[in-house]
C-alpha cells in the first residue's frame, strides 16, 4: 500500500516533467502544424546552460537565466530557420527540425565534450523531505512537482485570462481565421515557439541534476515526447497533461511490479509450453513488465493511432 | 419511366446543432442537365459533398441509377460512374497536364492497381489522353506541370479530369467561379461540348451560364429545395423571386 503511494509520487514527477516538454510541443504544433523534432534538444540545451551558469552564479540563477537563453534561441530558430523552410511545406519542416536535433547534439558535444556533466542538486534541496516505509522522497522531487504545477497554472492563466492567450487559443482552433483578423501571426508563431522551447529549457534545468546531463539526454527523451502529444491528441493542452501523467504512471508501475508475461498468459488460460527453453516463443514467455516498461508508451500510441487517430483529447484530425 | 440517373431521398446533414441540409428530395433524369442554384450559404456545396460521399449524410439516401450509395467511399462511387469537379481547383499541381488526365483514365481503362503494366507502353491510354487534351484545348500545355497553368486553364483541366474517366453522371461545382467574361464563355462552351449525352449536375452562380446550359433548375435555400423545374418556370416562380432571384433576374432581363 505504501509502495503504491510512493509510486504515485514518482510517476507524478516523471509525468509532470514530461508535461513541461509536451505542453510546449503541443502548443507549437497547434499553432504551426509542425512537429518539432528538436524539442528535446532544447531541453538538453536548458540543462547544459543551467550547468554552465550554476558553476558561476549558482543553481537558482541557472533556473532563471537558462530558460530565457533557450527561449531566445528557439525564437531565433523559428525566425531564421523554420520560417524559411515553412514555404516548402510540412515535410521539409519536420525534416528540418530532425536535422536540427542532430546538429544540436553535435554542437553540445563540441562545446562540452562527451562526458556526463557533474550538474547536481543544489545543497538547499539535497535532503530527504520525508520517507514512506523506508522509501525516502528527496526534497528535490517535491520541488520539481511544485515548479511543474506552477508552470501549468501559469500557462493556463495566460491561455485563458490574457489577450495573447485568447489569440493563441483561437489560433488553436481556427489558425486561418486568426490570420485573417489581422494579427501578426508570424510574431505569434515566433513567440509561441520561443515560449515552448523555453518551457523545454525549464524542464532541462530541473531534470538535469536528477536524470543526468549528457549528450544523449535529448535522444532518450525525444521520441517519448512525441508519443505523449500524439496519445493526448495533437494540439490539446489537457490531452498533453493527461497523457503525460498516464505515461508517467504506466511506466513507473510497470517497473515497480514484476508482472511476468507467463502469468498473464496463464491467467487468460494459455498454458506455458512444456518445452519452454526450445520454443520459438520462449522470449515472449519470459518477458516481464520492467523489461518492456519504456516501450509501453509506443504500444499505447500505435493502438491509439489505429483506433482513435485524433488521440484521447484531440478534436482535429491532422 | 426509366430509373433516374440520380435520386436524393430525404437527405439531411447537420454539423453539430447546425442543420445545413434539411431534407432534400430530388430526381435527375438520364441525360438531363440540371443546375442547383441558391444564395450563398444555402448548402449547395454541402449537397454535392453528400452525394459524392465526401461527407456522410445524417439522414437520407442517395441513389445512382437506382442503386443505393450509402456507406460507399468516394472512390467506389466514382467507379459506379459518378464523377465530380471541385469549387476550389483540385488538380495534381506537381504532375504534368498530360499525366493529370491520364491518371483520371487509369481506372476507367481497367488498369486498377496493376504494377505489371507500363503506362507509357499503352498506346490506347496515350491516345485517349491526347484526345481529351484536345477536347479541352490543352494539347499545347501537355508537358507543363499543371500548377503552372493559368486559372482558366486549370479549371478546364479540372473539367477534363472529371470527364476523362467516362462517367455518365458529371457533377461540376461552380465551374466558372472567379472567371472573366471571355473565360466564362470558353468554359461554358467546353462544358456543352464534353457533357454531350451525359447527365450533368452543376452548382453555379452565374445565371447566364445556368440558363444557357440547364434543362432544369433546382433552387436551394437554407438547406431546402424550394423549387424545381424548367428555367422558364423557375424564373416565374414567385417564391424563388422572393427568396433569391428577384434582383438577379431583373438585371438579367
Amino acid at each position: 500500500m505504501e509502495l503504491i503511494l510512493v509510486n504515485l509520487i514518482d510517476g507524478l514527477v516523471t509525468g509532470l516533467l514530461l508535461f513541461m516538454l509536451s505542453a510546449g510541443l503541443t502548443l507549437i504544433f497547434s499553432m504551426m502544424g509542425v512537429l518539432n523534432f528538436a524539442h528535446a534538444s532544447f531541453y538538453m540545451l536548458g540543462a547544459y546552460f543551467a550547468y554552465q551558469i550554476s558553476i558561476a552564479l549558482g543553481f537558482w540563477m541557472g533556473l532563471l537565466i537558462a530558460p530565457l537563453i533557450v527561449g531566445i534561441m528557439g525564437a531565433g530558430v523559428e525566425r531564421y530557420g523554420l520560417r524559411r523552410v515553412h514555404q516548402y511545406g510540412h515535410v521539409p519542416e519536420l525534416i528540418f527540425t530532425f536535422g536540427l536535433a542532430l546538429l544540436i547534439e553535435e554542437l553540445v558535444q563540441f562545446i562540452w565534450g562527451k562526458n556526463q556533466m557533474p550538474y547536481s542538486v543544489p545543497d538547499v534541496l539535497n535532503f530527504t523531505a520525508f520517507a514512506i516505509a523506508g522509501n525516502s522522497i528527496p526534497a528535490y522531487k517535491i520541488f520539481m512537482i511544485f515548479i511543474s504545477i506552477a508552470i501549468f497554472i501559469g500557462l493556463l492563466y495566460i491561455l485563458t485570462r490574457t489577450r495573447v492567450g485568447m489569440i493563441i487559443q483561437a489560433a488553436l482552433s481556427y489558425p486561418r481565421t486568426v490570420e485573417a483578423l489581422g494579427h501578426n501571426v508570424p510574431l505569434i508563431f515566433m513567440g509561441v515557439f520561443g515560449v515552448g522551447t523555453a518551457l523545454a529549457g525549464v524542464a532541462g534545468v530541473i531534470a538535469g541534476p536528477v536524470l543526468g546531463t549528457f549528450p544523449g539526454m535529448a535522444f532518450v527523451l525525444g521520441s517519448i515526447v512525441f508519443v505523449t502529444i500524439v496519445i493526448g491528441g495533437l494540439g490539446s493542452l489537457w490531452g498533453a497533461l493527461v497523457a503525460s501523467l498516464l505515461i508517467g504512471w504506466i511506466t513507473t508501475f510497470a517497473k515497480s511490479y514484476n508482472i511476468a508475461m507467463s502469468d498473464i498468459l496463464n491467467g487468460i488460460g494459455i498454458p506455458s509450453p512444456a518445452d519452454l527453453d526450445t520454443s520459438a516463443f520462449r522470449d515472449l514467455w519470459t518477458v516481464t513488465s520492467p523489461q518492456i516498461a519504456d516501450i509501453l508508451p509506443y504500444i499505447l500510441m500505435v493502438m491509439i493511432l489505429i483506433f482513435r487517430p485524433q488521440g484521447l483529447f484531440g478534436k482535429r484530425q491532422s | 419511366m426509366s430509373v433516374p440517373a440520380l435520386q436524393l431521398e430525404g437527405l439531411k446533414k447537420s454539423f453539430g446543432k447546425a442543420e445545413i441540409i434539411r431534407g432534400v428530395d430530388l430526381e435527375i433524369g438520364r441525360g438531363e442537365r440540371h443546375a442547383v442554384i441558391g444564395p450563398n450559404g444555402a448548402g449547395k456545396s454541402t449537397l454535392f459533398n453528400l452525394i459524392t460521399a465526401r461527407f456522410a449524410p445524417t439522414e437520407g439516401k442517395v441513389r445512382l441509377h437506382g442503386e443505393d450509395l450509402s456507406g460507399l467511399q468516394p472512390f467506389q462511387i466514382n467507379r459506379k460512374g459518378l464523377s465530380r469537379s471541385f469549387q476550389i481547383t483540385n488538380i495534381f499541381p506537381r504532375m504534368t497536364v498530360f499525366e493529370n488526365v491520364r491518371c483520371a483514365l487509369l481506372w476507367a481503362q481497367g488498369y486498377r492497381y496493376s504494377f505489371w503494366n507500363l503506362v507509357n507502353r499503352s498506346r490506347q491510354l496515350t491516345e485517349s489522353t491526347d484526345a481529351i487534351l484536345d477536347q479541352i484545348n490543352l494539347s499545347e500545355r501537355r508537358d507543363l506541370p499543371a500548377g503552372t497553368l493559368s486559372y482558366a486553364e486549370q479549371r478546364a483541366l479540372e473539367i477534363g479530369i472529371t470527364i476523362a474517366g467516362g462517367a455518365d453522371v458529371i457533377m461540376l461545382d461552380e465551374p466558372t467561379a472567379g472567371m472573366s467574361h471571355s473565360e466564362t464563355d470558353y468554359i461554358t462552351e467546353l462544358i456543352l461540348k464534353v457533357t454531350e449525352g451525359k447527365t450533368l449536375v452543376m452548382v453555379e452562380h452565374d445565371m447566364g451560364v445556368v440558363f444557357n446550359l440547364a434543362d432544369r433548375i433546382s433552387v436551394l435555400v437554407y438547406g431546402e429545395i424550394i423549387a424545381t423545374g424548367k428555367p422558364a418556370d423557375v424564373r416565374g416562380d414567385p417564391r424563388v423571386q422572393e427568396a433569391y432571384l428577384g434582383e438577379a433576374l431583373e438585371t438579367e432581363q
Partner: protein
Amino acid sequence: MTDTNVKDPARSKEQITTDPSKPAQRMGAGSMTLTLTPWLIGAVLLAILPFVFTSNSALTIMNQMWITVIFALAYNMLLGQGGMLSFGHAVYAGVGGFACMHIMNASDFFASFPLPVLPIFGGLFGMGLALIVGSFSTRSAGTVFAMISLGVGELIAASSVIVVAFFGGEEGISGDRTYAMPFFGNEFLQQIDVYYLISFWVIVSAALMYLWSRTPVGRMANAVRDNPERAEFLGYSARWVRFYSFVASGFFAGIAGGLFAINYEILTEENLNTASSGIILLVTFLGGVGFFFGPIIGAIVFTLVQTVLSLETDLWAFYAGTLFVATVMFFPGGLAGLMMMHVPAFKLGKAGYLVRPYIRTLIPAAIGTLGLCALVEMTFHVRHAATGDTQMTLFWIPFDSHAILPWVIAAAIALIGLGIARATTPALRDAWNEANTAGDRS
C-alpha cells in the same frame, strides 16, 4: 554581332527557370522515355569501378554504397513518390536481413541454392512485414502515418534485444555466406565476388523501382501524394495506393537487407534502430526526393562522408548535420534538385555563361568554408586535445594550434574567401538569370 546589346525585351523575359521551391514539380514530368542509355552507362561503370579501385577497403565502401542506394531508393518510393514520411523504415530492411541470416544458418536449405538468389528472400520477408504494418498504417498519410512508423519502428527495434530467438539479442545473428551452393563455381570468398553480386542487384532493383514508378499504381502514388482527395474521386482508394507503394518499398528495403546480410555476414540491433531509420531519411533527402536518381546521389555522398570523412576528422557528424540542415533550408530539392536546376540552361545552350561566375564565386566560397572548418577544428583541438599536445595537422600542414598565426591565417582565409564569394554573388545571379532566359543576347 553588331548590336550585341540590343535585346528584344518581349522575348528575353520569357523565363523557364524551374522553381527551386517545388522540387518535385519535375518529377515524372517529361522524360518518360524508357531509354536504356543511363542504365547501360551505370552497368558499365559498376563493372569497371573495381579495376580503378582495387583495394578491398574501396570495395567494402562501394558495397556499402550500393546497399544504401537500394535502401534509399526504396525509401524514396515512400517519401518522394508516395508522400509518406517514415521514421522507422530500417525495420523492413533489417527484418529482411535477419531472415536471410537465418536462411544462411539453415545449412541444408542454404546449401541447395546459389547465394545470388538469397536477397529475394530478404525482399519477401521485408514485404511480409510491410503487408502487416501497412494494413493499418497506410490508412492515412501525414502525421498519423509518420507517428505509426515511429512507434512500430521503436517497438521492433526494442524487441530486437528481447526476442533473442529471432534477432539474437545485442550480438545479433551471424552466418557464413560461403556455405551456399557454389554459383558457377564461385563461393563468394572474396570481396570482389560480393561486389559483383551487389552490383547486379543494384542495377536490377533500381531498374525495377524505376519501372514501378511508370506503372499505373506508381503513377497514382504520385497523384495520391499530391492530392489524395482528388485521387479518390478518380476511382482510386488513396489508402490502397499507399498500401501497394508501402509493400513494394518494404520488398526493396528487404532486398537491401539481404545484401547487407551477404556483405557483412552479421546483422545486429543496429540494422533496426531509429538511428538507421533516421539516417536513411537523411540520405534520401540530401540526395533529393524529387528525382528518381536523387537517393542514389545521396547514398554515395553520405557513405563517403560517413566512412571517409570520419577517418579524417572526429567532427564528421557535425559537418554532416550542418550540410543536412543547410540543404533543407536552401536546397529542398537536394543535390539532385541542385543539378537539375541547370537543365534549362543546358537546354538553352547557355550553360557556358555560368562557368566563369561559378568559378569566381564557388571557389572562394569553398576556400572560405575550408577556412571556417579550420577554425572549427582548431577550436576543437584547443578544447579537447591533451594538454601539451599543441601540434595538429590540417590539410597536410602541421602547426601549433596554440600559436596566434594559424588562427589569423585561418580567419583571414575564411573572411577573404567568403567575402569574395559574397561580392561576386550578384554577378552570379545575373549570369544565372541570363543563362535561363530564352532568346539570345549575344
